[in-house]
C-alpha cells in the first residue's frame, strides 16, 4: 500500500516541449559572411596576387585571353535567351491538353536529354554542316540552347505544376480565359519557384560553353589551350582559366540571387 503510494508520487508529468520546428534559417539570416562573398574574395584575391607578384607568365597570359572571354560571354548570353524561349514553349507544351503538342514537346525532351551535349555539338556542327552552312558561333548557340531548352522545359513544367489548381479555378471563375489565366495568374507565381533552378541552369550552361571549343570556336578555354600548348605553361594557364570562369560564374549567380530577392520582396511569410 505504502509502496504503491510512493511509486505514484515518483511519476512525473510528461512535458512535451514544442520547439520552433526544423532549423530553417529565416530570410535575411546570413551569418557572419556569405559563401558568395567568401568565394568571390578568394577568386579576386588570388587573381590579383598572381598578376602583381608573378607578372612574368600571368600578365602575358591575361593579355592573350580577352577575345576568348568575350566569345564565352556572347555564346552564354545568346544561348540563355534562346533557351528560356525554347524552355517556356517546351514546358507549356508538356502540360498542354493538345495531344500532338504534348507528344512533340515530350519527344524533344526525351531525345535531347538522352544525348550528351558534346555529341549534339558535333552533330549540329559537323553532321548537319554538310547540308546547312551556318557560322560556328550560330551552330554553338543553337546547340547549347537546343540542349538547355529541354532541361529548362522540365523546370518550367515543374514550376507551373507547383501552383495549386485552386488558382486556376479561381481565375477561370472570374472569367479569365486559359491564356489569361496562365499569363496573369500562374506564371507570375510560378516564376518564383522556377527562378532558383533556372539560375542553376544558367550557371551550368555558362560552364558548358567550354565544350564549344571543340567546334574550333575560340572561346576562353580554346584560347587557354592555344596558349598552354605553345608555351608549355599548363599549370599557370589552367589556373588562370579556372579563376576567370569562377569569377564570371559568381557574377552570374549574384545576378540570379538579386532577381530572386526582387521577386520575393512583396512576399511575407
Amino acid at each position, binding site marked *: 500500500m505504502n509502496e504503491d503510494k510512493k511509486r505514484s508520487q515518483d511519476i512525473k508529468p510528461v512535458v512535451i516541449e514544442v520547439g520552433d520546428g526544423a532549423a530553417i534559417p529565416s530570410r535575411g539570416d546570413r551569418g557572419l559572411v556569405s559563401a558568395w562573398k567568401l568565394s568571390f574574395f578568394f577568386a579576386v584575391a588570388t587573381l590579383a596576387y598572381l598578376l602583381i607578384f608573378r607578372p612574368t607568365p600571368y600578365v602575358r597570359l591575361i593579355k592573350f585571353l580577352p577575345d576568348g572571354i568575350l566569345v564565352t560571354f556572347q555564346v552564354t548570353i545568346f544561348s540563355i535567351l534562346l533557351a528560356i524561349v525554347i524552355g517556356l514553349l517546351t514546358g507549356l507544351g508538356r502540360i498542354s491538353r493538345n495531344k500532338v503538342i504534348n507528344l512533340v514537346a515530350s519527344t524533344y525532351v526525351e531525345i535531347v536529354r538522352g544525348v550528351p551535349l558534346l555529341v549534339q555539338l558535333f552533330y549540329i556542327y*559537323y553532321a548537319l*554542316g*554538310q547540308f546547312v552552312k551556318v557560322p*560556328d558561333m550560330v551552330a554553338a548557340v543553337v546547340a547549347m540552347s537546343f540542349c538547355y531548352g529541354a532541361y529548362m522545359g522540365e523546370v518550367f513544367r515543374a514550376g507551373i505544376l507547383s501552383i495549386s489548381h485552386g488558382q486556376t479555378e479561381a481565375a477561370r471563375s472570374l472569367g479569365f480565359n486559359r491564356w489569361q489565366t496562365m499569363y496573369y495568374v500562374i506564371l507570375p507565381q510560378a516564376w518564383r519557384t522556377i527562378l532558383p533552378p533556372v539560375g542553376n541552369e544558367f550557371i551550368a550552361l555558362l560552364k558548358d560553353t567550354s565544350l564549344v571549343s571543340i567546334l574550333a570556336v*575560340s572561346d576562353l578555354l*580554346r584560347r587557354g*589551350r592555344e596558349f598552354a*600548348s605553345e608555351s*608549355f605553361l599548363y599549370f599557370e594557364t589552367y589556373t588562370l582559366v579556372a579563376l576567370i570562369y569562377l569569377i564570371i560564374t559568381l557574377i552570374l549567380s549574384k545576378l540570379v540571387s538579386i532577381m530572386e530577392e526582387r521577386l520575393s520582396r512583396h512576399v511575407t511569410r
Partner: protein
Amino acid sequence: MFKRTLLTVMALVLLTGTALAKDIVFATDATWPPMEFVGPDKEITGFAVDYMKAAGKEAGFTPVFKAVAWDGIFAGLDAGNYDAICSSVSITDERKNAMDFSTPYFKVRQALVVPKDSTVKKIEEMKGKTLGAQISTTGHFAIKKVEGIKDKSYDEVGLAFEDLFNGRIDGVVCDDPVAAQYALQNDKYKNALKIATIIEAGDEFYGIAMKKGNKEVLDLVNKGIKAVQDKGIDKELQKKWIGQ
C-alpha cells in the same frame, strides 16, 4: 631431374627476359595519317609506328604505343605518363627548350590545302581569309606567321579538313604527307580538295621527343634510327606508306 628442368626453365626465362629488352612507351596522337593513325583493325599503325618497330628490332627495345590526344601530349611527357612521344613532332627551338629530341627521322614541309576550284598559288594570297590547322602544330604556327590571315585551331586535323570540305574555312595548313593523304588519296576529299602550294619556311624534321636528360631512352632510340637508316629500311617504309 625435376629440379634440374625447373632450373633450366627459370634460367631460360631470365635469359630471354633480358634479351627481349626493355619496353619503351611511346605516346602517339593517332589522327595523323599516314604517319600514325588507327587502322581498320583498330590498331595504331602508320609510317612512324612501323619505323619505331623496326628501330626497336635493331636496337633491342619493344615499342609500346599509347594513344594520347595531341593537346596535352607534351604535358603528359613532363608528368612522366610515358617515356617518349612518337607523333610527328617537328623539332623546333621552343620545343627543344622543354624536351630532348632524337636524331631526325623524317623531313617534312608545310602544305596548304584548298578547294579544287581555288586559284591560290601562295599563302600570302589568303589575306583576309580563314585558314585552319590542328592546334599548336607547326602548320598552325605557319598561319600565325603570315599577317592578315585569320587562324582557326582544331583538336584534330581531320576536323579541319571536314570544315574545309563543308566550306566553312578557306584552307588547311598541315604537314605535306598528311595533306597528300587527305587531298590526293582520301575517297571523300580527293575530288574536292587539292594541294595549292608547299609553304617555303625552311625544312622541318620529325624527331622522337623525350623528357630532358632521359639518356637511356635517347640512346636506344638514336641507335635504332641509325640502324634503320643504314639498312635502308626507311626507304622501304616510305614507299609503303607515302609512295615516293
